[in-house]
């Protein structure tokens, strides 16, 4: 009965398998052979300047295990070049309905990794014979100017030129009577972006996980259109700032929309109803505006960048009003709610505020001048001990903040307080005193001076503490003796859900530091160029501005010129920026043309001087003119183009990395104040350039220690040379080396020496090689074979030489076998497998493991243990020492590895260094003990001498 039931189950299973097989035979599924990409569309990227296209297509079934969709693009449908890909994980596949590929922005086009000639992608089987697919695995266009010339004008190109190439590898090329600098294609990388109005043709080629190319999609075209996104400001806040009852200014603060190409043109003030005010923007000559004319405040580009403006209010004829050259607008503080405020974008269209903003802007807020965040006076410092690419803008003193607390309730009530501090190299936090007082009590229950800033304070809470509010008072002392100690306040409130005391925002001088932000604006080496450098919260006190050295220069590519064999870029170059005159000097990369341009510039400046009446301005312009004339003198010497560009490079290096700054403090809702550094005596901006430092002053302690150590080595080497007996403490592992080699000799089995897992550049490997020399010599003397498997192929020939030399020194060059020192593999575990195999096959009697080791150490030593070999290990890898101690007979711990070769050689020179090392340890020990005592007594000068991580 039971047997029959099993048979019936088996029959049913076989039937099901047969059924599913027959289904699979008749089903018309999508296979690799017939798979086709459907619904490929190419659309313009909306809201851009015609610089992008977006491709969309339906993904193939995940069963096909598609690895990559390769995108081919061309400016004609018959020649398509590989331009990028969408890579998938074939195991997971693609879950969505549609795959998108964005062909937007500058993407790599041609570089030195591209093939030198046009390569047909032979794996693609075109749908029709007239279409060619070109490219290799990662590249489309070749480094062939004749091919590239066909793309002239079809893309927007820029060349990424290495600094060294930029200043030396160009030639003068004239095309259509215009001068260009021509760079060799092999020396530059070209980036390209699609261009407005040009039609591009696309085809997608899927590749499956075995890299089989499937049928390409049909070719679909698309054309980028310039349709910039012109969105007006998202928010507008307006605040009437008053000093008592007197209006002082009307402040405007708005938020520019991200991604919008529109900047704000003007602010309008109306006294009409909102709907009537709105119709002002739609008014025409036939249908003129019916309300009262608005007061218009025009905004320039710089104000747009700041997104805030303060209009002063003046008192005239007993009325408070805003004034400009053409009109005035009366502000009635009593009826301020009657004024409507609007902002207009400069796109040629008018944009009133959106509905949400109107609600906020309609009512102008009123605020006292006392509520205005304080003026952020700041200073700019060069960051010390760096290569000269960073400077720091500092506007506040170091800040200390309690960030987190947690209770520990074992053997009493304890509180762990985590704090953070924000300081900077120019003024460091020295220490702080913290007082914690329970709400309602007068005396603090905890006072503490935190002089070692480890971000944590542990304290015990009073016995009667019952989750009351705690007030924290933090008195900060900095390392600047001129700075008076100052105080921060925070409140810790118990949170029932988190079961912790949650710190409040920091207050200083009754100001909540979270209620405002700082905005830093940088003015670069250009006359009218201001960019936002940072927007940071109120507790931050500085901003580090990284001003990188020029490494690559990006230039627009005018054409690929097959005739001259060059990539043509404009010959113009910015030679310098005169920060005093606020003028950028643009000349040519070629001396002769620069001469002409410079003469014209000098004439311009002369005319400007003649038209100037202000003495200061005239003086600055005259100085600028003098600089130009001095440059002209150089050019008049008929210097070569080569020498001219060297001169230009010098000027550019020194003048293009300077910056000036402006800082705002703002609540982002209409209250703000700003500060610019005081101008120079002649009214020019203060500019700053980071300085490249020649010595790292934080490393004085390291340098002095190294020198002392070197002196000690010298002294003890000399003593050793003179024959002074230097006692070296015995190290068991080293003393046993001889016995271990002797054991191998007696047993007639080889010795295995593993020189670690690291490369020759690691000091532990060098120490291991020193030991190898001694062991190999001893082995050669005893005529015992030594096997040295290496993981690093650079190490292998060095180890071979060492073993060979050891045999020669032992007088047994004939016994040296080159194949006994060999390379195994660089892979960690494959190497272990190889070494373990050697131990088992060769039955090595003695195993040495010297150098650096990682996770594989135990795998090797346990195998050695199983084979019964005597094992001696030596490593500086702290995490592996326990494994070696457990499984090896002797282990050289840490420094003993370095001492081993000296110990074995007994050479006075080397023994001297060992002795010096011991005495230097005494010095370190002295500083540790004295430092601990002084630090416990809160004397930190010794602590400050040494660098801290």
């Amino acid at each position, binding site marked *: 009965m039971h047997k029959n039931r099993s048979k019936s189950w088996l029959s049913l299973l076989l039937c099901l398998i047969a059924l599913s097989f027959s289904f699979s035979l008749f089903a018309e599924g999508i296979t690799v052979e017939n798979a086709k990409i459907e619904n490929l569309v190419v659309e313009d990227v909306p809201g851009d300047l015609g610089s992008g296209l977006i491709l969309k297509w339906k993904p193939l079934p995940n069963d096909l295990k598609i690895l990559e969709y390769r995108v081919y693009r061309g400016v004609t449908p018959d020649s398509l070049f590989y331009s990028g890909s969408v890579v998938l994980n074939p195991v997971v596949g693609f879950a969505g309905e549609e795959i998108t590929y964005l062909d937007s922005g500058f993407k790599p086009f041609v570089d030195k990794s591209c093939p030198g000639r046009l390569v047909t992608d032979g794996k693609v089987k075109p749908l029709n014979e007239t279409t060619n697919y070109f490219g290799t695995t990662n590249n489309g266009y070749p480094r062939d100017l004749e091919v590239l010339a066909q793309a002239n004008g079809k893309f927007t190109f820029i060349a990424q030129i290495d600094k060294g190439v930029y200043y030396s590898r160009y030639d003068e090329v004239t095309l259509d009577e215009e001068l260009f600098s021509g760079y060799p294609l092999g020396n530059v990388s070209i980036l390209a972006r699609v261009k407005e109005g040009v039609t591009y043709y696309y085809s997608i080629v899927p590749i499956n*996980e075995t890299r089989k190319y499937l049928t390409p999609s049909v070719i679909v075209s698309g054309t980028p259109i310039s349709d910039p996104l012109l969105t007006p400001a998202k928010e507008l806040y307006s605040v009437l700032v008053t000093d008592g009852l007197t209006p002082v200014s009307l402040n405007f603060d708005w938020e520019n929309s991200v991604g919008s190409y529109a900047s704000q043109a003007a602010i309008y003030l109306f006294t009409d109803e909102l709907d009537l005010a709105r119709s002002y923007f739609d008014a025409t000559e036939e249908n003129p505006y019916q309300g009262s004319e608005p007061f218009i405040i025009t905004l320039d580009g710089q104000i747009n960048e700041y997104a805030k403006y303060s209009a002063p209010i003046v008192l005239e004829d007993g009325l408070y009003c805003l004034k400009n050259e053409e009109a005035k607008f009366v502000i009635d503080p009593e009826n301020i709610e009657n004024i409507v405020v609007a902002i207009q974008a400069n796109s040629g269209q008018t944009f009133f505020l959106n509905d949400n903003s109107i609600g906020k802007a309609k009512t102008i807020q009123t605020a006292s001048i006392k509520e205005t965040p304080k003026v952020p006076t700041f200073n700019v410092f060069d960051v010390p001990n760096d290569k000269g*690419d960073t400077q720091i803008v500092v506007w506040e003193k170091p800040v200390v903040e309690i960030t987190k607390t947690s209770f520990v309730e074992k053997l009493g009530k304890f509180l762990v307080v985590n704090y953070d501090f924000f300081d900077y190299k120019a003024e460091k936090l020295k220490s702080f005193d913290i007082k914690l007082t329970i709400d309602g009590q007068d005396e603090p229950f905890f006072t503490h001076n935190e002089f070692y800033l480890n971000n944590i304070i542990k304290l015990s809470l009073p016995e009667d503490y019952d989750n009351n509010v705690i007030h924290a008072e933090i008195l900060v002392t900095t390392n600047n003796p001129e700075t008076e100690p100052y105080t921060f306040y925070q409140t810790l409130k118990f949170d029932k859900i988190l079961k912790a005391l949650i710190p409040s925002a920091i207050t200083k001088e009754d100001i909540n530091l979270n209620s405002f932000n700082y905005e830093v604006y940088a003015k670069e080496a250009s006359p009218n160029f201001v960019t936002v450098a940072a927007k940071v919260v109120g507790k931050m006190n500085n901003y580090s501005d990284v001003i990188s050295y020029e490494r690559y220069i990006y230039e627009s590519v005018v054409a690929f010129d097959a005739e001259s064999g060059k990539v043509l870029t404009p010959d113009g170059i910015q030679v310098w920026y005169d920060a005093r005159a606020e003028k950028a000097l643009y000349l040519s990369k070629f001396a002769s043309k620069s001469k002409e341009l410079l003469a014209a510039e000098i004439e311009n400046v002369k005319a400007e001087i003649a038209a100037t009446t202000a003495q200061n301005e005239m003086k600055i312009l005259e100085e600028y003119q003098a600089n130009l004339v001095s440059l002209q003198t150089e050019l008049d010497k008929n210097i070569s183009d080569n020498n001219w560009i060297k001169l230009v490079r010098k000027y550019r290096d020194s003048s293009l990395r300077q910056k000036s700054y402006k800082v705002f403090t703002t609540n982002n809702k209409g209250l703000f104040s700003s500060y610019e550094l005081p101008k120079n005596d002649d009214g020019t901006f203060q500019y700053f350039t980071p300085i490249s430092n020649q010595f790292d002053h934080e490393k004085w302690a390291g340098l002095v220690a190294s020198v002392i*150590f070197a002196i000690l080595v010298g002294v003890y080497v000399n003593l050793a040379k003179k024959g002074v007996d230097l006692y070296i403490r015995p190290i068991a592992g080293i003393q046993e080396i001889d016995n271990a080699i002797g054991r191998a000799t007696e047993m007639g089995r080889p010795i295995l020496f593993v020189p670690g897992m690291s490369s020759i550049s690691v000091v532990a490997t060098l120490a291991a090689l020193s030991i190898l020399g001694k062991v190999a010599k001893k082995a050669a003397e005893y005529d015992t074979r030594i096997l040295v498997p290496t993981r690093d192929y650079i190490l292998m020939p060095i180890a071979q030489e060492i073993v060979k030399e050891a045999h020669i020194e032992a007088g047994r060059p004939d016994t040296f076998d080159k194949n006994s020192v060999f390379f195994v593999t660089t892979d960690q575990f494959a190497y272990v497998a190889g070494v373990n195999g050697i131990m088992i096959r060769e039955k090595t009697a003695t195993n040495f493991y010297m150098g650096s080791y990682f996770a594989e150490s135990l795998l090797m030593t346990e195998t050695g243990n199983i084979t019964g070999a005597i094992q001696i290990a030596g490593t*500086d890898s*702290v995490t592996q020492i326990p494994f070696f101690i457990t499984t090896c007979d002797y282990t050289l711990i840490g420094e003993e590895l370095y001492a081993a070769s000296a110990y074995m050689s007994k050479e006075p020179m080397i023994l001297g260094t060992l002795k010096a090392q011991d005495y230097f340890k005494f010095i370190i020990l002295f500083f540790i003990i004295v430092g601990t005592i002084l630090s416990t007594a809160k004397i930190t000068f010794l602590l400050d001498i040494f660098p801290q991580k």
Partner: protein
Amino acid sequence: MKKNIPLAIVIILGFIFVGWTFIPAKWMQDDFYTAFIEFTKTMSPFAVVLGIYSLVSMHYSRIRMKAPKWGYSFVTIIGLVVTATVGFVYGTQSGTPAQWIFRNMMMPISATMFSLLAFYMATAAYKSFRARSVEATVLLVAAIIIMLGQVPLGMAISKTWPINILDISQWIMDVPNLASKRGILLGVGLGSVATSLKILLGIERTYLGGGD
């Protein structure tokens, strides 16, 4: 001569790199260092050839001499030739045979080797924790506390005991363990500096190999 020229190169470059440590200036950190690193990269291809030559030479001689278990050498050479050939012919990107070999052969074998570590650790722990002496007993007790501190059982025990085993475990890690670790690291640091100094001053020359 064979030793003196390399020794001179080592000493000169050694002192330059001492300078590199203390001089943050651009000419040293960017201009010199970048150029030097580029230069060192050129060494690698030559050494790869030497490495492959050594591997092939050793295993070839084992095969030729029919050394014990020479079949393994044969497998090694076949593996080298096959992997190199498919890499050169089909490339090494995803989907190529080289990647297949890596994913389906190399990775599982490496993972197997690594997983053996767990068992070796267990045997090593057994050897160490046998309470044969006072020191071994101390080690055993410390190990038990640390282990309990790492697992949920430790936390559960701590709730019922007056002493928090997690805190003791953390204390052992933070105080005696860290102190001894730092002691070793201090020695390692000094030894490392001493070895570097010996090389820099030409006292230690073993790494130069033989010849005059």
